[in-house]
Each structure stands twice: as C-alpha cells, then as structure tokens.
C-alpha cells in the first residue's frame, strides 16, 4: 500500500517532469524577496528538510504551518543561517535573498543577519535596560553616529512595535520588568531597529495570553508595509488571520503553498485538508 510519502513523491516527480514547481502547479506570480531552491538540511546524518522549493513574496506575510517536528522552524532559521550555530549540521541547495545565494561561501553571515531579522519563540530581552535592548543592534553595527540619532532610532523602533506609549517613561529600567507580551514587542522593536528587510518570526505569540497575542498580530499586519514577514506558527487560526500566503510542511517536505485564503478553503492536497481539519497533528 502506498504511504502518504509515496503519494507526495509521485506527485512531485510528475510535476517536475512537466516543468512545474512541486508545490505550485498553477504558478502564483509575485515579486519574490526570498527564494528557497531545492533546499535540504541535515542534523548529523538525519535529513530534516527534503529539497524544499518555495518563494516568499515581498512585503507580504507568509506563514509556515505544520505539525511539530515538520521542519518549519528549521526552514525559518535557515533563512538567516541561525542553524549555523548548531554543531554538526549541513545544508544543501540554495536560498536566495534578492537573487543572492545566502549559502555562498563568500557570504558574510553578519551582513545577512542585519538584513534578515528574527524574533524568537520565547522572548529573550537582554538583561539590560529597555533602551539598551533596542540600541544594541544599532551599536554593534555602528549604525548611528551620535546619541541624538540613537535616541531617535530607539523611539522610532519602539513606536513601530507599538510599545512606545507604554515604556517611554521607563526607558532606563530593566527590560525584565516588562510583562511577557511587552517583552516580546520589545524583541520586535529590537529587531526593527537595525531596519532589516525580512523579519522572521518563530511562533512569536505562543507563550502569550490572548490579548498580548492580538496586539502582536495587529502589529504584524502593520509591519508588512515595510518588511517581508515570514512567520512560523502551529496555531492555524493565527496563520489564517495574519498571513497572505501559507506553506504547509509535513515531515520535512513542502506539501502545499498557496494564498492563505485558498489554502485554507480549498486545499489541493488531501494531507493539507486532513491537517487543517484536525485529523492529525
């Protein structure tokens, strides 16, 4: 009996044979900011991503969904090469940022990460003041010339992250005195301060209460005007609410990629439908 695996593989080969994209038979056209091309990733000898091919549209929100362990976070972290920090890992294939392969041996990861910012699942402010948290990226990258400029950029970032009004009178208190939701918005402000082009969000609201989550989601909608946003979430309602496009991953493979509306209402793959209707995962 063919397993789900074989079915996907068969379909993929079929499509590749006719020159189409494995996950995109009716090619959706948009200006792509990030293109993933036959990208595979290994932890030691275990392959956790299998030749993923996928494009992330510019100034849109793309959600990566799928059950735990499907590789969505690994894929996200591959886009700013955060996985490089994990020992004994290996990548194959290409990921292009504006057409440049970020895995090219000549690429400077520090420059890459300045252009591709990231917000993590658990808010991780530095044990410094609120101001210093936001100023950190500006300082290490030498992005400001003087104190006034620094203060302006910090304020601008905190405003963008919809946190300014709540913290403007306590900028020099420890960031750890903030609530969980505020800490996460501070982490967003910190990432925005260096003005990245792409913003990677790894389940940014998974540890937050509904009100804080709502704030973060509203913020994401605002931010896509300036940034290309890629968000990992295991909350399907959240993906439906915040994203324009959604990619569904399963066991390290891309099963389906489409406009969020279409993927959620008329999934092409049986697997997607099963996942969305809660039959597994």
């Amino acid at each position, binding site marked *: 009996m063919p397993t789900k695996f074989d079915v996907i593989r068969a379909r993929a080969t079929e499509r590749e044979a006719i020159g189409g994209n494995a996950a995109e038979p009716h090619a959706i056209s948009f200006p792509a900011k990030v293109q993933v091309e036959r990208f595979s990733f290994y932890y030691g000898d275990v392959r956790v991503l299998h030749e993923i091919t996928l494009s992330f549209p510019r100034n849109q929100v793309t959600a990566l969904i799928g059950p735990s362990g499907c590789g969505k976070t690994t894929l996200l972290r591959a886009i700013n090469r955060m996985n490089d*920090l994990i020992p*004994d890992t290996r990548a194959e294939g290409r990921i292009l940022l504006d057409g440049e392969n970020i895995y090219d041996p000549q690429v400077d990861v*520090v420059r890459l*990460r*300045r252009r591709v910012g990231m917000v993590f699942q658990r808010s*991780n402010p*530095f044990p410094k003041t609120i101001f210093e948290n936001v100023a950190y990226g500006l300082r290490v990258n030498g992005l400001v010339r003087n104190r006034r400029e620094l203060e302006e950029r910090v304020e601008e970032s905190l405003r963008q992250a919809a946190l300014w009004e709540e913290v403007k009178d306590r900028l020099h208190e420890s960031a750890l005195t903030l609530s969980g939701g505020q800490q996460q918005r501070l982490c967003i402000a*910190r990432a925005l301060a260096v003005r990245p082009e792409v913003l990677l969000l790894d389940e940014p609201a998974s540890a937050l209460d509904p009100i804080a989550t709502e704030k973060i989601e509203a913020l994401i909608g605002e931010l896509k005007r300036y940034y290309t946003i890629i968000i990992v979430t295991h909350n399907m309602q959240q993906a439906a609410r915040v994203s324009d496009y959604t990619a569904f991953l399963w066991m390290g493979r891309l099963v389906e990629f489409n406009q969020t509306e279409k993927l959620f209402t008329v999934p092409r793959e049986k697997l997607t439908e099963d996942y969305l209707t809660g039959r597994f995962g």
Partner: protein
Amino acid sequence: MSAVPGTRTTSLRVSRRELFWERLREQVPIGLLALASVLIVAMLGVILGNIVWNGAGQISLEFLTTAPRGGMTEGGIFPAIFGTVALVILMTIAAVPIGVATAIYLREFTPGSNLGYAWAHLRAARHWQERLAGFARVLEVLLARATRAAVNNLAGVPSIVFGLFGLGFFVRFVGGGIDRLVYGGELVYGQPAIIWAALTLALLTLPVVIVSTDEALRAVPRELREASLALGATRWQTIWRVVLPEALPGVLTGAILAVSRGAGEVAPVLFTGAAYFLPYLPSRLNDQFMELGYHVFILSTQSPDVEKTKPLLYGTVLVLLGLTFALNAVAVLIRARVRRRLRARS
C-alpha cells in the same frame, strides 16, 4: 469492583508486630545513612572547635602585625600573612586570564566536538578550500578534546608533583634560562622566588578557574546569544557584550575558589619560593617569601621548642582557616546572588 481474574484482594491492615518489623527494616538503613552524615559534621566540629578554642586567645593585633621572634617561639606571623596575600594576588593575575581564555575557547568556539562528523566532513570535501576547512575542523576538535582531557587530569595531579614540576620547569629551566640569557649567569631568577611559586600555584588552580568559567558560560541562555547574533552582532561582540557580562559572577566565583584553594596549599610552594624565615618582606618578583601553610608546617616540625610554639601554631592555623573560609563565603554569596537573578528571570 473488578480485578484481574485470579488475584485476591489483600487487606491493607497488618498486625502491630508485623508493622514494627516493617518499620525497623525501613528505618535502620536510613539511620545508618544519617549516622555517616553526623560523623562528618562531628569531625568538622571537633577540628574547628579545637582550633578555635586553642587559637582564639592567640589572635591579637601584635600577633597579626609583627614578625616571628626568638627562633619562631615568640612574636607574630605578619610576614607569612603578607607573603600569602602577595602570592595569591600574583597567582590570580596569572591564572584567571589564562583560565578564562581557555574556557571561552572551549565553550564558545569549539561547539561541535564530534570527531566522527568532523572526519566525515574532511572526507566528503572536494575542493582544496573545503579540504583545508575540514582539516582545520578536525584539528580544532582534537585540540578541544585534548584541552578538556588536560583540564580534567590537571585537577587530579597531586600538588607535590606540581611543586616538583615548578622547581624543574619554572625555577631551573625558565629562571635559569633568564639568568643565562639576560644576567650572564648571575643568580637572579634561577632560584626559588615568589613569582615561580605563584606560577606553580596558578597551574594548580587553573582547572578550578576553567571549570567554573565554563559552567558560568554554559549557564548563559542560548537565547541571549542567538538574539545578539540575529541582530547582526559578530561572535566577539556577542561574547564581549552579552555573554561575559552574564557570566561575570560565575567567573568571579571561580577566581575566588581558586584563590582559596591556592592559599591553603603548601606543597607547590615548598621548593619554588617559600622561605623558612625572612628578615624582610618580599618586594621584588624574585624575592622569597613566607607563607601561612608553610609556616604551619615549620612551626609544627622544625621548632626548637615544641611546647612554646604550640599556641603560635594554633593561632596561625586559625588565621589560615579564617582566610580560606572567608574567601569561600564570598564565593558562595556571589553564587547565591546569581542564582536568585537567574530564578527571577525564568
């Protein structure tokens, strides 16, 4: 009520007799374990009690601030206190930077220590650049492993061996070498001196510094490192601005523990610089010095009048103990503060 067929339900109640024996079987081993613990506390109590009882009366301003007189049977121990402190300061200057540097290298720059993968990388390499990188990686893994093994084994070497090594390496080889090359054979550094004793002691305490720094670095959450790197910071900036400030209390604890360990050692300084008696305080790196631990040894074995030196001996031991205990207490306090801070964060 249902049960697996064939099982009988047994009553929960047992007779008083059975209960008594049951309790006894349970309690006797626990009692033995407790006894062992009591023994430790009692022994420490006896040792400390004896020293404090006999030594406390000896402690006076004069005892702490004057030199020994009358062939070690009178006077104070100031030169020994001074020598110990000077020794320990020199040792810290030598041991802490090297220890911290080693720990940073081990923890921050050699994350993958799997030789198999490094080897596989090298074998899979096709271009010469890849081969070079693979080769470097294998070397790095080997170096990291060798260093860890060295650190672990260094900690297990008896301190007298360090003393002999210090005599052979620092005093004879390094010191003697300096004399031959710089002073034309004149005896300046090629003799036991405080600098050689301090370096020998530094070697002995290095594992303490490395291990505690390593632990402090490991306790810095990975999330903080990632946050910094994701903002476009380099690895150095991340270590310097985020990791080290977080690890600083742990590093300090390690340094203090090293000092308290080093302050109590006699064997490593025996051949490398400690003097039986010195009429002056050490003021240059190649001076000899008096040391508290060594002074205790001398008072108890080399005294011309054992009965007369006994109170001095008790007093000296009390000062030595007080010094190391105080250092340990400071280390414990710092550690407690760090723990509290870590708890407050999570």
